[in-house]
């Protein structure tokens, strides 16, 4: 039987530090993001995702999409790596993840405007 959504008083915003995130593999981070977002929280991660990771995030949210969960909204600041830094990151296994990611269910989070260096979002309270 489908779980009935519990009514919340507001939106919980979780901040996760770089230190906490660097201990986790990407698949663990992805599961953690989806669990939290489906629980109607907004997550702020102190690291950027690379393009392949962003594609995986979109894929995962589409796979989990159903009548109760319409998907995600996400935004953030990317690490501005040039191609040499990207290659070095791949060789050393330590890519530059400096940046920020904000992600939430599209039910509660709406992007107002996004640029390379400025973002504004609305958290919807129902």
């Amino acid at each position, binding site marked *: 039987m489908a779980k009935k959504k519990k009514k919340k008083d507001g939106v919980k915003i979780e901040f996760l530090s770089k230190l906490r995130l660097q201990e986790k593999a990407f698949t663990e981070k992805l599961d953690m993001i989806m669990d939290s977002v489906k629980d109607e929280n907004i997550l702020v991660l102190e690291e950027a995702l690379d393009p392949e990771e962003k594609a995986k995030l*979109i894929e995962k949210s589409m796979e989990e999409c159903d009548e109760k969960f*319409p*998907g995600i909204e996400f935004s953030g600041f990317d690490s501005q790596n040039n191609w040499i830094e990207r290659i070095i990151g791949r060789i050393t296994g330590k890519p530059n993840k400096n940046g920020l990611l904000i992600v939430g269910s599209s039910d509660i989070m709406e992007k107002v405007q996004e640029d*390379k260096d400025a973002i504004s979002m609305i958290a919807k309270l129902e």
Partner: protein
Amino acid sequence: MLKRLKKILSGFFGRKDQIKLGIYGPPNTGKTTLANRISEEFTGEEMGSVSEVPHETRVVKKKEKIDLEANGKNISMNLLDMPGISTKVDYKEFIEHGIDEDDAKARSKEATKGVVEAIKWLDKVDAVLVVFDSAKDPYTQVNVTILGNLEAKDIPIILVANKTDLDESDPDSIRDAFPQYNFTEISAKEKDNLENLYREIVENV
């Protein structure tokens, strides 16, 4: 630099017989209208149905062996019209467009599968037209993600600012947001400036 090396090597070893040219972008940017224009012009047949309702294309549509000619050059390609990539698919949005609830839910399910399929194809295409609705804000995570993945795989990209027939159209906003890519502006609906796009394809793909 890698692109230049690839071009030099392709000069030595010759091009692939059939280039897989993917048409990517968010929903409702006019990808299928553009695919239909290209296909109609070079094969006499359309590729898919178009609609105001988002996610009309929910599976990858292929048109094989299109011989595109422009500027005295030609290229033989398989054209792939991709489902629009999106981070959310809400069946209620389809209901607002007049679709009944059961069909809206079914459409929603198919649309999510289409998005996943389009993402998986990013590994298999040889070149891509990324289509933008030039009346909308171009700097979105969907566009950044598509372009970032193609760039990481060193796949040639042409940005297509579509819907220039609209009053609110602002192609320069796309050029400004992503200045590093080849760029052309068109109206697929009005068949405007398609010759320029064909020239971009034969020159850069």
